């Protein structure tokens, strides 16, 4: 008797799933019609597809910044965005699946947030030539791909200058989320900034995870341990480029007198979750992903989608240092001098350590 009920339940569940699946299919074919046939209709029904990286909306950092761009665009142009978030366990095929789903359902542009989508964007963008794809932090070839790159080594260089000027012990820490080329760029710029300012200062580097293990971007406890270790070695300024793991570092640093944190991606001084610790946040190396995302959505809205590599750097304000809290006031002249030198090309910022 029990088996019969189980089979019946399973049957009903399968039927329900199949029904929803076909429903999705139907709506996607309908909606891809107008987006495919002409750009004129795009104005009234803006359908933006967002695929976030691990952490997603609410990571108080990188993904949140992209989400702000989306919110601003939604306010300006209307429409209903669709947001998906990658998980730690996702492989290449899962990510391709997210983008395919969005493109198939008629979302345009499809914005993928994070370098981890690079391969997926390459594959999927070739299949949907009429959809504009955006990728943050990576360069992907393709006529319908907007590669948004950020000169984070440049902002990290400025963070390094600030760290060197503020450190009393001459010993500075860098915490990287995952040991990959992108984060090594932060490290390289930061180290160069410190050494150009105070050649005798020492920078200690610690990564939280390596390779394909992306947990280092979302483990505040790991960030806290790494920071505690650094503080016990006399390090008094810590720059954490580690996604939401950075909050652990910032909270630990806030428990130590005369120690400073440098935030990353968003202006972390303004983050309500860190309100208690903000008196120790010297500055943040911001990366205006929101501007880039907004630019892309706007361009699609206007019928002239951005494509190719769009570089956001110090010169065009795509990256920079946040000055909230006013802790930088005393060292502003040096920071501005360094900034001018980078813009003029007098300083070439390295992107590999």
């Amino acid at each position, binding site marked *: 008797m029990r088996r019969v009920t189980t089979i019946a339940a399973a049957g009903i569940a399968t039927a329900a799933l199949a029904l929803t699946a076909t429903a999705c299919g139907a709506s996607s074919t309908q909606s891809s019609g107008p987006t495919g046939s002409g750009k004129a209709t795009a104005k009234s029904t803006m359908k933006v597809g967002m695929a976030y990286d691990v*952490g*997603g*909306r*609410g*990571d*108080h950092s990188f993904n*949140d910044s992209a989400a702000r761009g989306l919110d601003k665009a939604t306010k300006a142009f209307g429409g209903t965005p669709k947001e998906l978030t990658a*998980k*730690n366990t996702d492989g290449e095929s899962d990510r391709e699946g997210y983008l395919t789903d969005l493109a198939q359902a008629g979302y345009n542009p499809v914005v993928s947030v994070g370098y981890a989508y690079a391969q997926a964007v390459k594959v999927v963008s070739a299949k949907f030539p009429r959809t504009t794809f955006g990728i943050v932090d990576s360069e992907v070839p393709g006529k319908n791909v907007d590669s948004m790159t950020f000169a984070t080594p440049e902002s990290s260089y400025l963070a390094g200058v600030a760290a060197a000027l503020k450190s009393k012990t001459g010993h500075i820490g860098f915490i990287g989320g995952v*040991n990959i080329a992108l984060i090594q760029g932060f490290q390289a710029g930061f180290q160069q900034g410190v050494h150009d300012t105070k050649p005798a200062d020492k920078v200690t580097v*610690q*990564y*939280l*995870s*390596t*390779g394909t*293990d992306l*947990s280092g971007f*979302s*483990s*505040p*406890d*790991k960030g*806290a*341990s*790494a920071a*505690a*270790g*650094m503080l*016990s070695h006399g390090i008094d300024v810590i720059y954490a480029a580690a996604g*939401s793991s950075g909050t*652990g570092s910032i*909270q630990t640093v806030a428990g130590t007198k005369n120690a400073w944190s440098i935030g990353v991606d968003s202006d972390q001084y303004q*983050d*309500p*979750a*860190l*309100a*208690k610790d903000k008196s120790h946040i010297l500055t943040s190396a911001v990366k205006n992903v929101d501007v880039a995302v907004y630019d892309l959505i706007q361009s699609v809205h206007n019928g002239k989608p951005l494509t190719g590599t769009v570089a956001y750097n110090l010169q065009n304000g795509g990256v920079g240092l946040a000055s909230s809290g006013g802790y930088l006031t005393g060292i502003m002249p040096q920071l501005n001098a360094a900034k001018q030198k980078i813009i003029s090309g007098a300083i070439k910022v390295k992107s590999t350590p």
Partner: protein
Amino acid sequence: MSVTTAPATAPKSSAAGGGRRKLSFPMILVVLACALIAVSAVRAITGADDVTSSGQVGGALEMAVPIGLAGLAGLWSERAGVVNIGLEGMMILGTFFGAWAGWQHGPWIGLLAGVVGGMLGGLVHAIATVTFGVDHIVSGVAITLLAQGATEYLAKMWFNTGHAARIGGSPKQSPNIASVGSITVPGLSPWLATVEKHHWFLVSDLAGVLGGLVTNLSLFTVLAAVLFAATYFVLWRTPFGLRLRSCGEAPVAAESLGVNVYRYKYIGVIMSGGLAGFGGAFLAMVPAHAYQEGQTGGRGYIGLAAMIFGNWRPGGLAMGAGLFGYTDSLQLRNGGPAAHALLLLLFILLVALAVRKFYRKSYKQGVAGVISAALLLVWFLMTSTIPDEFVSITPYVATLLVLSLSAQRLRMPKADGKPYRKGQGK
């Protein structure tokens, strides 16, 4: 490593107690002293002061507690004969409910809510496995998946709306939770810190280790330690414990003696859920100050490994958890150079093992030990640091090594994971 060579025919009570008597208290002290000497020697030779610094030991303890609690949770369940692979899910429930009550009412209420949340997970597991006879692994995996999904869904509703969202909540994160109090032994702790600073051989190392154990100790950590002692006492020194363990060894025999096996299994699994929930709440409130999606990071499974490492006993399990916590903390705090120093420690251990094997006249294993020790020494001498990729796998390599070296001696509860229906024995 405790030597448990229980004969297969031995009755359950002596099998459980037999290994214990061999490892007398002075023996444990000798082993501890040897370990300390080896570690101090490594520190003196390599200059990696962090190997025994109080900060490192304190950090290791903090990393070890959630793993230890997960292992203790597994112990309660498996001693009652139910495999609990759903620990991860129960920990997730603990982090979520702990943080949910914690940010509103403070850490102690949060702890209570976390424990209750874990217990709910345990109750579901007990109903599925004990009452309905579902396969233990299937039910455990289902609970983990369910807990992940449910918390993700609830977090969107509870942490991303109203007041919670304004003070820093998001779908992935709860608002901040106030810190739970911590204790530092006055007088002793600063004195130990001064001794540690001198870097005297052995003395400073001892001071560092002790200092780490008495400085800034979270009250939750103290509570966890008490739970370890209490578990040992309850399960091995009371009639209740004997009955519960009998359900894991020979439920039919227990039933014939009038033990209500179902009830004891329920108690074991619900306790298990509660302890896992405590582990989760600890994670959300001590190392971090908020719930974070994916915070448990597989610690439930690592806790199970620690339990197996400890031969289903609290003492061994605490050692296993300590080992995980130590390597975890070492690689996060100091990375390459400190892990490099561990190579030398591993070398010393392998040499000791080889000597013992030769002494016992098992020459093949002895030679294998010597060769691997020599290879390690070469590696140690030729390099000055370890690549990051290797450092991060240190805890897992250590586990594999220890498990493969001690696997033959492990003995799980006899009826662990076996289906049991009332009245089977008739």
